[in-house]
Protein backbone atom coordinates (compact mmCIF):
# COMPACT_ATOMS: atom_id res chain seq x y z
CA UNK A 1 0.00 0.00 0.00
CA UNK A 2 1.35 3.36 -1.02
CA UNK A 3 0.10 6.43 0.77
CA UNK A 4 -0.28 9.74 -0.97
CA UNK A 5 1.98 11.44 1.53
CA UNK A 6 4.78 9.18 0.33
CA UNK A 7 4.34 10.49 -3.19
CA UNK A 8 3.64 14.15 -2.44
CA UNK A 9 7.21 15.22 -1.86
CA UNK A 10 9.26 17.96 -3.54
CA UNK A 11 11.51 15.39 -5.27
CA UNK A 12 8.48 13.80 -6.91
CA UNK A 13 7.03 17.03 -8.27
CA UNK A 14 6.25 16.82 -11.98
CA UNK A 15 3.89 19.73 -12.49
CA UNK A 16 3.10 22.93 -10.66
CA UNK A 17 1.73 26.32 -11.55
CA UNK A 18 4.44 28.60 -12.97
CA UNK A 19 5.63 31.67 -11.09
CA UNK A 20 5.35 33.71 -14.28
CA UNK A 21 1.67 33.85 -13.36
CA UNK A 22 0.82 36.00 -10.35
CA UNK A 23 -1.13 34.65 -7.40
CA UNK A 24 -4.25 36.57 -8.45
CA UNK A 25 -7.33 34.40 -8.98
CA UNK A 26 -8.34 34.83 -12.61
CA UNK A 27 -11.76 36.36 -13.18
CA UNK A 28 -12.55 34.08 -16.13
CA UNK A 29 -15.62 31.87 -16.12
CA UNK A 30 -15.11 28.24 -15.07
CA UNK A 31 -13.58 26.24 -17.91
CA UNK A 32 -12.65 29.25 -20.03
CA UNK A 33 -9.68 28.66 -22.32
CA UNK A 34 -8.14 32.02 -21.43
CA UNK A 35 -6.78 30.63 -18.18
CA UNK A 36 -5.13 27.70 -19.91
CA UNK A 37 -3.69 29.90 -22.63
CA UNK A 38 -2.31 32.33 -20.03
CA UNK A 39 -0.67 29.46 -18.23
CA UNK A 40 0.90 28.01 -21.37
CA UNK A 41 2.34 31.41 -22.37
CA UNK A 42 3.68 31.89 -18.84
CA UNK A 43 5.26 28.43 -18.89
CA UNK A 44 7.02 29.23 -22.18
CA UNK A 45 8.32 32.50 -20.74
CA UNK A 46 9.59 30.64 -17.67
CA UNK A 47 11.22 27.87 -19.67
CA UNK A 48 12.96 30.35 -21.99
CA UNK A 49 14.10 32.45 -19.02
CA UNK A 50 12.75 35.67 -20.52
CA UNK A 51 10.54 36.93 -17.69
CA UNK A 52 12.73 40.04 -17.37
CA UNK A 53 12.44 40.74 -21.10
CA UNK A 54 8.78 39.94 -21.67
CA UNK A 55 6.26 42.77 -22.03
CA UNK A 56 2.58 41.87 -22.35
CA UNK A 57 0.10 44.09 -24.16
CA UNK A 58 -3.38 43.28 -22.89
CA UNK A 59 -6.47 44.00 -24.98
CA UNK A 60 -10.01 45.15 -24.28
CA UNK A 61 -12.39 42.24 -23.91
CA UNK A 62 -12.51 39.33 -21.48
CA UNK A 63 -8.73 39.36 -21.11
CA UNK A 64 -8.60 43.10 -20.35
CA UNK A 65 -7.11 42.26 -16.96
CA UNK A 66 -4.49 39.84 -18.35
CA UNK A 67 -1.84 42.20 -16.98
CA UNK A 68 -2.93 41.25 -13.47
CA UNK A 69 -2.15 37.59 -14.17
CA UNK A 70 1.09 37.66 -16.17
CA UNK A 71 3.91 38.40 -13.78
CA UNK A 72 5.71 40.47 -16.41
CA UNK A 73 5.68 44.19 -17.20
CA UNK A 74 2.42 44.91 -18.99
CA UNK A 75 0.37 47.59 -20.66
CA UNK A 76 -3.38 47.72 -21.17
CA UNK A 77 -4.24 48.81 -24.70
CA UNK A 78 -7.24 50.68 -26.02
CA UNK A 79 -9.60 48.35 -27.90
CA UNK A 80 -7.78 46.87 -30.90
CA UNK A 81 -4.60 48.94 -30.59
CA UNK A 82 -2.30 46.37 -29.01
CA UNK A 83 -0.24 45.71 -32.17
CA UNK A 84 0.53 49.44 -32.53
CA UNK A 85 1.62 49.63 -28.89
CA UNK A 86 3.70 46.48 -29.27
CA UNK A 87 5.27 47.85 -32.45
CA UNK A 88 6.62 50.90 -30.66
CA UNK A 89 7.94 49.06 -27.62
CA UNK A 90 9.61 46.35 -29.70
CA UNK A 91 11.30 48.97 -31.88
CA UNK A 92 12.42 50.97 -28.85
CA UNK A 93 13.59 47.83 -27.02
CA UNK A 94 14.59 45.45 -29.83
CA UNK A 95 15.98 42.78 -27.47
CA UNK A 96 12.82 42.50 -25.39
CA UNK A 97 9.97 40.05 -25.99
CA UNK A 98 6.84 42.08 -26.61
CA UNK A 99 3.66 40.09 -27.14
CA UNK A 100 0.03 41.03 -27.56
CA UNK A 101 -2.85 38.98 -26.20
CA UNK A 102 -6.06 39.71 -28.09
CA UNK A 103 -9.53 38.36 -28.63
CA UNK A 104 -11.46 38.11 -31.88
CA UNK A 105 -13.34 41.40 -31.50
CA UNK A 106 -10.21 43.25 -30.50
CA UNK A 107 -7.92 41.81 -33.17
CA UNK A 108 -10.23 41.05 -36.08
CA UNK A 109 -12.87 43.81 -35.85
CA UNK A 110 -11.94 47.09 -34.23
CA UNK A 111 -8.19 46.49 -34.49
CA UNK A 112 -8.05 45.06 -38.01
CA UNK A 113 -5.92 47.91 -39.35
CA UNK A 114 -3.42 47.72 -36.50
CA UNK A 115 -3.21 43.92 -36.83
CA UNK A 116 -2.73 43.86 -40.59
CA UNK A 117 -0.18 46.66 -40.69
CA UNK A 118 1.90 45.37 -37.80
CA UNK A 119 2.00 41.96 -39.52
CA UNK A 120 2.68 43.52 -42.91
CA UNK A 121 5.62 45.51 -41.53
CA UNK A 122 6.88 42.25 -40.12
CA UNK A 123 7.15 43.68 -36.63
CA UNK A 124 9.23 41.37 -34.48
CA UNK A 125 6.38 40.72 -32.07
CA UNK A 126 4.35 37.73 -30.97
CA UNK A 127 0.59 38.01 -31.40
CA UNK A 128 -1.59 35.63 -29.42
CA UNK A 129 -5.08 35.59 -30.88
CA UNK A 130 -7.86 33.93 -28.91
CA UNK A 131 -10.82 33.13 -31.15
CA UNK A 132 -14.01 32.01 -29.47
CA UNK A 133 -16.39 33.43 -32.05
CA UNK A 134 -18.16 35.77 -29.68
CA UNK A 135 -17.83 38.93 -27.58
CA UNK A 136 -17.62 37.46 -24.10
CA UNK A 137 -17.04 40.52 -21.94
CA UNK A 138 -19.92 42.61 -23.24
CA UNK A 139 -22.37 39.77 -22.92
CA UNK A 140 -22.15 37.47 -25.92
CA UNK A 141 -22.60 39.61 -29.02
CA UNK A 142 -21.55 38.68 -32.56
CA UNK A 143 -17.84 38.67 -33.30
CA UNK A 144 -16.22 38.85 -36.75
CA UNK A 145 -15.49 35.14 -36.31
CA UNK A 146 -19.03 34.12 -35.29
CA UNK A 147 -20.13 31.15 -37.39
CA UNK A 148 -23.01 31.31 -39.86
CA UNK A 149 -26.21 30.38 -38.05
CA UNK A 150 -24.65 30.88 -34.62
CA UNK A 151 -26.90 32.59 -32.12
CA UNK A 152 -25.51 35.52 -30.17
CA UNK A 153 -27.04 38.49 -28.33
CA UNK A 154 -26.92 40.55 -31.55
CA UNK A 155 -27.74 37.66 -33.89
CA UNK A 156 -30.64 36.21 -31.90
CA UNK A 157 -31.89 34.29 -34.96
CA UNK A 158 -28.42 33.12 -35.91
CA UNK A 159 -25.76 34.91 -37.96
CA UNK A 160 -27.00 35.42 -41.49
CA UNK A 161 -24.80 36.23 -44.45
CA UNK A 162 -27.33 38.75 -45.76
CA UNK A 163 -27.38 40.69 -42.55
CA UNK A 164 -23.90 40.15 -41.12
CA UNK A 165 -21.59 38.91 -43.85
CA UNK A 166 -19.18 36.01 -43.46
CA UNK A 167 -16.98 34.82 -40.57
CA UNK A 168 -13.55 36.39 -40.99
CA UNK A 169 -10.65 33.97 -41.31
CA UNK A 170 -8.14 36.62 -40.42
CA UNK A 171 -5.39 34.12 -39.68
CA UNK A 172 -5.40 32.78 -43.25
CA UNK A 173 -5.48 36.38 -44.47
CA UNK A 174 -2.45 37.33 -42.36
CA UNK A 175 -0.53 34.31 -43.63
CA UNK A 176 -0.64 35.94 -47.07
CA UNK A 177 1.40 38.91 -45.86
CA UNK A 178 5.15 38.74 -46.43
CA UNK A 179 5.81 40.17 -42.96
CA UNK A 180 4.46 37.16 -41.09
CA UNK A 181 7.09 34.52 -40.43
CA UNK A 182 5.02 32.03 -38.49
CA UNK A 183 1.25 31.64 -38.54
CA UNK A 184 -0.45 28.79 -36.77
CA UNK A 185 -3.81 27.82 -35.31
CA UNK A 186 -4.04 25.73 -32.15
CA UNK A 187 -6.38 24.94 -29.28
CA UNK A 188 -6.06 24.05 -25.59
CA UNK A 189 -9.06 21.84 -24.88
CA UNK A 190 -7.22 18.50 -24.48
CA UNK A 191 -3.83 17.56 -23.01
CA UNK A 192 -2.50 16.79 -26.50
CA UNK A 193 -3.78 20.11 -27.84
CA UNK A 194 -2.16 21.96 -24.95
CA UNK A 195 1.19 20.30 -25.70
CA UNK A 196 0.97 21.35 -29.35
CA UNK A 197 -0.16 24.86 -28.47
CA UNK A 198 2.73 25.22 -26.07
CA UNK A 199 5.16 24.09 -28.74
CA UNK A 200 3.70 26.65 -31.14
CA UNK A 201 3.92 29.48 -28.62
CA UNK A 202 7.49 28.46 -27.82
CA UNK A 203 8.27 28.54 -31.54
CA UNK A 204 6.78 32.04 -31.77
CA UNK A 205 8.98 33.38 -28.96
CA UNK A 206 12.03 31.59 -30.39
CA UNK A 207 11.37 33.27 -33.75
CA UNK A 208 11.24 36.58 -31.95
CA UNK A 209 14.57 35.85 -30.30
CA UNK A 210 15.98 35.26 -33.77
CA UNK A 211 14.37 38.54 -34.97
CA UNK A 212 12.47 36.75 -37.72
CA UNK A 213 9.41 39.00 -37.97
CA UNK A 214 5.84 38.54 -36.85
CA UNK A 215 4.74 35.30 -35.23
CA UNK A 216 0.99 34.84 -35.01
CA UNK A 217 -0.63 32.14 -32.92
CA UNK A 218 -4.39 31.72 -33.05
CA UNK A 219 -5.99 29.68 -30.30
CA UNK A 220 -9.50 28.50 -31.10
CA UNK A 221 -11.15 28.53 -27.73
CA UNK A 222 -14.46 28.12 -25.97
CA UNK A 223 -16.84 30.61 -24.46
CA UNK A 224 -19.16 28.42 -22.47
CA UNK A 225 -20.98 31.42 -20.93
CA UNK A 226 -21.48 33.10 -24.30
CA UNK A 227 -22.33 29.84 -26.01
CA UNK A 228 -24.59 28.93 -23.07
CA UNK A 229 -23.15 25.45 -22.52
CA UNK A 230 -21.23 23.64 -19.83
CA UNK A 231 -17.44 23.87 -20.24
CA UNK A 232 -17.21 20.23 -21.33
CA UNK A 233 -20.07 20.57 -23.81
CA UNK A 234 -18.54 23.80 -25.12
CA UNK A 235 -15.27 22.04 -25.88
CA UNK A 236 -17.15 19.34 -27.76
CA UNK A 237 -19.20 21.93 -29.68
CA UNK A 238 -15.96 23.72 -30.53
CA UNK A 239 -14.47 20.56 -32.05
CA UNK A 240 -17.61 19.88 -34.06
CA UNK A 241 -18.43 23.42 -35.22
CA UNK A 242 -15.46 25.74 -34.87
CA UNK A 243 -12.74 23.40 -36.15
CA UNK A 244 -14.31 22.85 -39.61
CA UNK A 245 -14.23 26.61 -40.19
CA UNK A 246 -11.03 27.24 -38.25
CA UNK A 247 -8.94 24.09 -38.79
CA UNK A 248 -6.12 23.55 -36.34
CA UNK A 249 -2.54 23.33 -37.61
CA UNK A 250 0.36 25.34 -39.00
CA UNK A 251 -0.50 27.74 -41.82
CA UNK A 252 2.91 29.32 -42.36
CA UNK A 253 6.25 28.11 -41.04
CA UNK A 254 9.63 29.83 -41.46
CA UNK A 255 8.02 32.35 -43.78
CA UNK A 256 6.66 29.66 -46.12
CA UNK A 257 3.00 28.72 -46.45
CA UNK A 258 2.36 25.10 -45.49
CA UNK A 259 0.91 23.19 -48.43
CA UNK A 260 -2.24 21.31 -47.56
Amino acid sequence: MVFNQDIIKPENLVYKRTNVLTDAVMHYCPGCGHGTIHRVIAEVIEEMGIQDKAICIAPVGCSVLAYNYFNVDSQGAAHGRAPAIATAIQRLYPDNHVFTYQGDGDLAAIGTAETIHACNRGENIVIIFVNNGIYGMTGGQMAPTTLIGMKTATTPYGRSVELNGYPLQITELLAELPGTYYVTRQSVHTPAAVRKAKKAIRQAFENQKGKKGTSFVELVSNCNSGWKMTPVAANKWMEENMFPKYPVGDIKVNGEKVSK
Partner: protein
Amino acid sequence: MAKELKLMKGNEAIAEAAIRSGCDGYFGYPITPQSEVMEYLMLEKPWEKTGMVVLQAESETSSINMVYGGAGAGKKVMTSSSSPGISLMQEGMTYLAGAELPCLVVNVVRGGPGLGTIQPSQADYFQATKGGGHGDYQLYVLAPASVQEMYDFVFDAWEIAFKYRNPVMILSDGAIGQVMEKLYVGDYVPRWTDEQIHKIAPWATFGKPASRDHNIITSLELDSAKQELHNQKLQAKYREMERNEVRFEEINCEDAEYLFVAYGSSARIAQKAIQLGREKGIKVGLLRPITLFPFPTKKLAELSKKVKGMLSVEMSAGQMVMDVKLATEGRCKVEHYGRFGGMIPTPHEVLEALEEKIIKG
Protein backbone atom coordinates in the same frame (compact mmCIF):
# COMPACT_ATOMS: atom_id res chain seq x y z
CA MET B 1 25.86 76.09 -25.13
CA ALA B 2 27.11 76.44 -28.67
CA LYS B 3 24.42 78.00 -30.83
CA GLU B 4 24.01 77.64 -34.55
CA LEU B 5 21.86 79.94 -36.63
CA LYS B 6 19.55 78.20 -39.10
CA LEU B 7 16.71 79.07 -41.46
CA MET B 8 13.83 76.64 -41.21
CA LYS B 9 10.12 76.04 -41.44
CA GLY B 10 8.30 75.71 -38.14
CA ASN B 11 7.57 72.07 -38.88
CA GLU B 12 11.22 71.38 -39.60
CA ALA B 13 12.17 73.09 -36.35
CA ILE B 14 9.96 70.62 -34.49
CA ALA B 15 11.79 67.74 -36.16
CA GLU B 16 15.24 69.21 -35.58
CA ALA B 17 14.36 69.85 -31.93
CA ALA B 18 13.17 66.27 -31.56
CA ILE B 19 16.54 64.95 -32.71
CA ARG B 20 18.53 67.42 -30.61
CA SER B 21 16.45 67.01 -27.47
CA GLY B 22 17.14 63.29 -27.16
CA CYS B 23 13.77 62.10 -28.40
CA ASP B 24 13.63 58.29 -28.62
CA GLY B 25 10.81 57.85 -31.05
CA TYR B 26 8.58 59.67 -33.49
CA PHE B 27 5.44 57.98 -34.82
CA GLY B 28 3.32 59.85 -37.32
CA TYR B 29 1.00 59.90 -40.26
CA PRO B 30 1.11 62.48 -43.07
CA ILE B 31 -1.37 65.33 -43.08
CA THR B 32 -1.15 68.87 -44.44
CA PRO B 33 0.06 71.32 -43.14
CA GLN B 34 2.48 69.39 -40.89
CA SER B 35 3.90 66.66 -43.14
CA GLU B 36 7.36 68.26 -43.14
CA VAL B 37 7.91 67.02 -39.59
CA MET B 38 8.17 63.39 -40.60
CA GLU B 39 9.65 64.18 -44.03
CA TYR B 40 12.50 66.06 -42.36
CA LEU B 41 13.09 63.24 -39.87
CA MET B 42 13.17 60.59 -42.59
CA LEU B 43 15.66 62.69 -44.56
CA GLU B 44 17.86 63.27 -41.51
CA LYS B 45 17.89 59.56 -40.53
CA PRO B 46 18.27 60.22 -36.79
CA TRP B 47 18.46 56.46 -36.15
CA GLU B 48 21.99 56.69 -37.50
CA LYS B 49 22.87 59.78 -35.45
CA THR B 50 21.17 59.32 -32.10
CA GLY B 51 19.38 55.98 -32.35
CA MET B 52 15.99 57.69 -32.50
CA VAL B 53 13.22 55.53 -33.98
CA VAL B 54 11.07 57.11 -36.71
CA LEU B 55 8.07 55.26 -38.07
CA GLN B 56 5.25 56.11 -40.45
CA ALA B 57 2.15 54.48 -39.00
CA GLU B 58 -0.95 53.32 -40.86
CA SER B 59 -3.15 55.97 -39.23
CA GLU B 60 -3.19 58.62 -36.55
CA THR B 61 -4.99 56.12 -34.35
CA SER B 62 -2.00 53.85 -34.65
CA SER B 63 0.61 56.57 -34.22
CA ILE B 64 -0.90 57.83 -30.96
CA ASN B 65 -1.02 54.27 -29.67
CA MET B 66 2.61 53.77 -30.63
CA VAL B 67 3.27 56.87 -28.54
CA TYR B 68 1.30 55.24 -25.71
CA GLY B 69 3.46 52.12 -25.94
CA GLY B 70 6.75 53.98 -26.06
CA ALA B 71 5.74 56.41 -23.31
CA GLY B 72 4.60 53.54 -21.13
CA ALA B 73 8.03 52.01 -21.58
CA GLY B 74 9.69 55.19 -20.28
CA LYS B 75 10.89 56.61 -23.58
CA LYS B 76 10.70 60.18 -24.86
CA VAL B 77 8.23 59.73 -27.68
CA MET B 78 6.14 62.05 -29.79
CA THR B 79 3.82 62.44 -32.72
CA SER B 80 2.57 65.34 -34.77
CA SER B 81 -0.51 65.90 -36.86
CA SER B 82 -3.06 68.48 -37.87
CA SER B 83 -6.66 68.95 -36.78
CA PRO B 84 -8.52 66.02 -38.43
CA GLY B 85 -5.66 63.71 -37.44
CA ILE B 86 -5.65 65.05 -33.90
CA SER B 87 -9.38 64.35 -33.68
CA LEU B 88 -8.65 60.76 -34.62
CA MET B 89 -6.02 60.65 -31.86
CA GLN B 90 -8.39 61.69 -29.09
CA GLU B 91 -8.95 58.11 -27.99
CA GLY B 92 -5.23 57.68 -27.46
CA MET B 93 -4.91 61.05 -25.75
CA THR B 94 -7.42 60.22 -23.05
CA TYR B 95 -5.77 56.84 -22.45
CA LEU B 96 -2.38 58.58 -22.20
CA ALA B 97 -3.79 61.09 -19.71
CA GLY B 98 -5.57 58.36 -17.75
CA ALA B 99 -2.47 56.18 -17.56
CA GLU B 100 -0.38 59.30 -16.78
CA LEU B 101 2.11 58.89 -19.57
CA PRO B 102 4.58 61.59 -20.56
CA CYS B 103 4.70 62.36 -24.26
CA LEU B 104 4.57 65.14 -26.82
CA VAL B 105 1.83 65.70 -29.38
CA VAL B 106 2.17 68.54 -31.86
CA ASN B 107 -0.97 69.92 -33.50
CA VAL B 108 -0.35 72.19 -36.49
CA VAL B 109 -3.92 73.41 -36.62
CA ARG B 110 -5.87 73.85 -39.86
CA GLY B 111 -9.38 75.11 -40.45
CA GLY B 112 -12.35 72.91 -39.64
CA PRO B 113 -14.85 71.50 -38.96
CA GLY B 114 -14.57 68.17 -40.74
CA LEU B 115 -11.94 67.98 -43.43
CA GLY B 116 -12.18 71.79 -43.44
CA THR B 117 -9.25 73.42 -45.15
CA ILE B 118 -5.48 73.20 -45.11
CA GLN B 119 -4.98 76.84 -44.14
CA PRO B 120 -4.08 78.00 -40.61
CA SER B 121 -6.65 78.13 -37.85
CA GLN B 122 -6.91 78.24 -34.07
CA ALA B 123 -10.24 76.51 -33.81
CA ASP B 124 -8.84 73.50 -31.91
CA TYR B 125 -8.43 75.54 -28.73
CA PHE B 126 -11.36 73.88 -26.96
CA GLN B 127 -10.21 70.42 -27.97
CA ALA B 128 -6.68 71.10 -26.72
CA THR B 129 -7.49 72.87 -23.47
CA LYS B 130 -10.70 71.23 -22.30
CA GLY B 131 -9.61 67.63 -22.54
CA GLY B 132 -10.57 66.63 -26.06
CA GLY B 133 -11.45 63.02 -25.42
CA HIS B 134 -13.74 61.51 -22.80
CA GLY B 135 -13.27 61.86 -19.06
CA ASP B 136 -11.85 64.59 -16.85
CA TYR B 137 -8.32 65.30 -17.94
CA GLN B 138 -6.00 68.05 -19.11
CA LEU B 139 -3.08 68.28 -21.43
CA TYR B 140 -0.31 70.76 -20.77
CA VAL B 141 -0.64 73.04 -23.81
CA LEU B 142 2.14 75.25 -25.20
CA ALA B 143 1.37 77.78 -27.93
CA PRO B 144 4.43 78.82 -29.95
CA ALA B 145 4.35 82.09 -31.88
CA SER B 146 7.59 81.68 -33.83
CA VAL B 147 9.81 79.05 -35.42
CA GLN B 148 12.25 79.56 -32.54
CA GLU B 149 9.51 78.67 -30.07
CA MET B 150 8.54 75.62 -32.12
CA TYR B 151 12.09 74.46 -31.50
CA ASP B 152 12.43 75.55 -27.87
CA PHE B 153 9.09 74.21 -26.72
CA VAL B 154 10.00 70.65 -27.69
CA PHE B 155 12.72 70.77 -25.01
CA ASP B 156 10.31 72.37 -22.53
CA ALA B 157 7.71 69.72 -23.33
CA TRP B 158 9.94 66.85 -22.16
CA GLU B 159 10.61 68.65 -18.88
CA ILE B 160 6.94 69.12 -18.10
CA ALA B 161 5.85 65.74 -19.45
CA PHE B 162 8.19 63.77 -17.21
CA LYS B 163 7.88 66.12 -14.22
CA TYR B 164 4.11 65.61 -14.13
CA ARG B 165 3.75 62.30 -16.01
CA ASN B 166 1.34 64.02 -18.38
CA PRO B 167 0.93 64.41 -22.13
CA VAL B 168 2.06 67.77 -23.48
CA MET B 169 0.66 69.37 -26.60
CA ILE B 170 2.32 72.00 -28.72
CA LEU B 171 -0.66 73.81 -30.25
CA SER B 172 0.68 75.51 -33.32
CA ASP B 173 -1.04 76.42 -36.57
CA GLY B 174 -0.51 76.16 -40.29
CA ALA B 175 1.15 79.57 -40.44
CA ILE B 176 3.81 78.87 -37.79
CA GLY B 177 4.30 75.39 -39.23
CA GLN B 178 4.89 76.59 -42.76
CA VAL B 179 6.65 79.93 -42.27
CA MET B 180 10.45 80.02 -42.61
CA GLU B 181 12.33 82.01 -39.98
CA LYS B 182 15.77 82.07 -38.54
CA LEU B 183 16.33 80.22 -35.33
CA TYR B 184 19.13 79.26 -33.03
CA VAL B 185 19.65 75.59 -32.33
CA GLY B 186 21.73 74.24 -29.47
CA ASP B 187 23.83 71.19 -28.68
CA TYR B 188 22.53 67.65 -28.91
CA VAL B 189 21.06 66.35 -25.68
CA PRO B 190 21.96 62.66 -25.53
CA ARG B 191 19.10 60.15 -25.38
CA TRP B 192 18.60 58.60 -21.97
CA THR B 193 20.39 55.35 -21.31
CA ASP B 194 18.44 52.36 -19.99
CA GLU B 195 19.90 53.04 -16.54
CA GLN B 196 18.67 56.64 -16.65
CA ILE B 197 15.20 55.52 -17.72
CA HIS B 198 15.06 53.04 -14.85
CA LYS B 199 15.74 55.94 -12.46
CA ILE B 200 13.57 58.58 -14.13
CA ALA B 201 10.64 56.29 -14.94
CA PRO B 202 10.72 53.41 -12.44
CA TRP B 203 7.01 52.88 -13.17
CA ALA B 204 7.64 52.06 -16.85
CA THR B 205 7.38 48.69 -18.59
CA PHE B 206 10.89 47.97 -19.84
CA GLY B 207 11.02 44.39 -18.57
CA LYS B 208 10.63 43.24 -14.99
CA PRO B 209 13.86 42.61 -13.07
CA ALA B 210 13.64 39.96 -10.33
CA SER B 211 14.03 42.73 -7.77
CA ARG B 212 10.65 44.35 -8.27
CA ASP B 213 6.98 43.57 -8.84
CA HIS B 214 5.68 43.79 -12.39
CA ASN B 215 4.80 47.27 -13.66
CA ILE B 216 1.38 47.79 -15.20
CA ILE B 217 0.40 50.68 -17.44
CA THR B 218 -3.36 51.05 -17.72
CA SER B 219 -6.16 53.58 -17.43
CA LEU B 220 -8.65 50.96 -16.23
CA GLU B 221 -9.84 50.76 -12.61
CA LEU B 222 -13.14 48.98 -12.21
CA ASP B 223 -13.47 49.88 -8.54
CA SER B 224 -15.21 53.27 -8.73
CA ALA B 225 -13.92 54.35 -5.34
CA LYS B 226 -10.38 53.80 -6.57
CA GLN B 227 -11.15 55.44 -9.90
CA GLU B 228 -12.37 58.51 -8.02
CA LEU B 229 -9.15 58.58 -6.03
CA HIS B 230 -7.22 58.39 -9.29
CA ASN B 231 -9.27 61.28 -10.68
CA GLN B 232 -8.58 63.32 -7.55
CA LYS B 233 -4.88 62.68 -8.01
CA LEU B 234 -5.10 63.87 -11.62
CA GLN B 235 -6.98 67.00 -10.59
CA ALA B 236 -4.40 67.76 -7.91
CA LYS B 237 -1.72 67.48 -10.58
CA TYR B 238 -3.55 69.92 -12.85
CA ARG B 239 -3.97 72.39 -9.96
CA GLU B 240 -0.23 72.12 -9.32
CA MET B 241 0.43 72.97 -12.95
CA GLU B 242 -1.85 75.98 -12.56
CA ARG B 243 0.20 77.13 -9.59
CA ASN B 244 3.65 76.51 -11.02
CA GLU B 245 3.70 76.26 -14.78
CA VAL B 246 1.76 79.21 -16.23
CA ARG B 247 3.65 81.05 -18.95
CA PHE B 248 2.75 84.25 -20.80
CA GLU B 249 4.32 87.29 -22.45
CA GLU B 250 3.33 90.92 -21.83
CA ILE B 251 3.90 93.45 -24.59
CA ASN B 252 3.22 97.18 -23.98
CA CYS B 253 1.03 96.36 -21.00
CA GLU B 254 2.54 98.97 -18.59
CA ASP B 255 0.50 101.93 -19.82
CA ALA B 256 -2.18 100.04 -21.73
CA GLU B 257 -5.79 101.16 -21.59
CA TYR B 258 -6.82 98.37 -23.92
CA LEU B 259 -5.50 94.89 -24.36
CA PHE B 260 -5.30 92.30 -27.08
CA VAL B 261 -5.30 88.76 -25.78
CA ALA B 262 -3.89 86.48 -28.46
CA TYR B 263 -1.63 83.43 -28.83
CA GLY B 264 0.37 81.91 -31.67
CA SER B 265 -0.01 83.51 -35.10
CA SER B 266 -2.74 85.84 -33.83
CA ALA B 267 -0.30 87.25 -31.29
CA ARG B 268 2.09 88.12 -34.11
CA ILE B 269 -0.72 89.93 -35.94
CA ALA B 270 -1.83 91.66 -32.75
CA GLN B 271 1.73 92.94 -32.25
CA LYS B 272 1.56 94.76 -35.57
CA ALA B 273 -1.92 96.04 -34.66
CA ILE B 274 -0.43 97.50 -31.45
CA GLN B 275 2.08 99.43 -33.54
CA LEU B 276 -0.70 100.74 -35.80
CA GLY B 277 -2.84 101.64 -32.79
CA ARG B 278 -0.07 103.45 -30.95
CA GLU B 279 0.62 105.47 -34.11
CA LYS B 280 -3.00 106.65 -33.79
CA GLY B 281 -2.56 107.38 -30.06
CA ILE B 282 -4.43 104.30 -28.78
CA LYS B 283 -2.69 102.89 -25.73
CA VAL B 284 -3.03 99.19 -26.46
CA GLY B 285 -0.97 96.24 -25.28
CA LEU B 286 -0.87 92.47 -25.69
CA LEU B 287 -1.12 89.64 -23.24
CA ARG B 288 0.11 86.53 -25.02
CA PRO B 289 -0.69 83.27 -23.24
CA ILE B 290 2.20 80.88 -23.89
CA THR B 291 0.52 78.09 -21.97
CA LEU B 292 -3.14 77.66 -22.88
CA PHE B 293 -3.49 75.13 -20.13
CA PRO B 294 -2.70 76.22 -17.51
CA PHE B 295 -4.20 79.53 -18.62
CA PRO B 296 -2.81 82.88 -17.32
CA THR B 297 -6.04 83.48 -15.41
CA LYS B 298 -4.42 85.36 -12.52
CA LYS B 299 -2.51 87.69 -14.79
CA LEU B 300 -5.63 88.52 -16.78
CA ALA B 301 -7.58 89.10 -13.58
CA GLU B 302 -4.90 91.56 -12.49
CA LEU B 303 -4.88 93.34 -15.85
CA SER B 304 -8.67 93.50 -15.93
CA LYS B 305 -8.49 95.94 -13.00
CA LYS B 306 -6.24 98.27 -15.01
CA VAL B 307 -7.61 98.29 -18.54
CA LYS B 308 -10.91 99.44 -20.03
CA GLY B 309 -11.37 96.50 -22.31
CA MET B 310 -9.83 93.40 -23.86
CA LEU B 311 -10.16 91.97 -27.35
CA SER B 312 -9.50 88.27 -27.71
CA VAL B 313 -8.05 87.84 -31.18
CA GLU B 314 -8.29 84.28 -32.44
CA MET B 315 -8.54 82.45 -35.74
CA SER B 316 -11.72 80.83 -34.51
CA ALA B 317 -15.33 81.73 -33.89
CA GLY B 318 -14.42 82.63 -30.31
CA GLN B 319 -13.02 79.97 -28.02
CA MET B 320 -10.25 81.44 -25.83
CA VAL B 321 -12.48 84.47 -25.27
CA MET B 322 -14.50 82.35 -22.85
CA ASP B 323 -11.43 81.77 -20.67
CA VAL B 324 -10.65 85.49 -20.85
CA LYS B 325 -14.20 86.27 -19.68
CA LEU B 326 -13.90 83.76 -16.85
CA ALA B 327 -10.59 85.30 -15.80
CA THR B 328 -11.79 88.91 -15.89
CA GLU B 329 -15.14 88.20 -14.21
CA GLY B 330 -16.89 91.19 -15.76
CA ARG B 331 -14.40 93.76 -14.48
CA CYS B 332 -13.75 95.07 -17.97
CA LYS B 333 -15.32 94.72 -21.34
CA VAL B 334 -14.27 91.57 -23.23
CA GLU B 335 -15.03 90.89 -26.87
CA HIS B 336 -13.82 88.50 -29.50
CA TYR B 337 -12.57 89.15 -32.98
CA GLY B 338 -11.70 86.33 -35.31
CA ARG B 339 -11.52 85.05 -38.83
CA PHE B 340 -11.96 81.35 -39.37
CA GLY B 341 -12.07 78.47 -41.79
CA GLY B 342 -8.44 79.15 -42.72
CA MET B 343 -8.65 82.94 -43.07
CA ILE B 344 -6.01 85.06 -41.34
CA PRO B 345 -6.96 88.52 -40.03
CA THR B 346 -4.87 91.54 -41.02
CA PRO B 347 -3.47 93.93 -38.37
CA HIS B 348 -5.76 96.67 -39.74
CA GLU B 349 -8.83 94.46 -39.27
CA VAL B 350 -7.74 93.69 -35.73
CA LEU B 351 -7.24 97.34 -34.84
CA GLU B 352 -10.56 98.24 -36.41
CA ALA B 353 -12.26 95.54 -34.35
CA LEU B 354 -10.72 96.99 -31.19
CA GLU B 355 -12.01 100.43 -32.06
CA GLU B 356 -15.49 99.20 -33.00
CA LYS B 357 -16.13 96.54 -30.38
CA ILE B 358 -14.19 97.84 -27.38
CA ILE B 359 -13.39 101.54 -27.65
CA LYS B 360 -16.64 102.76 -29.28
CA GLY B 361 -18.86 99.87 -28.31
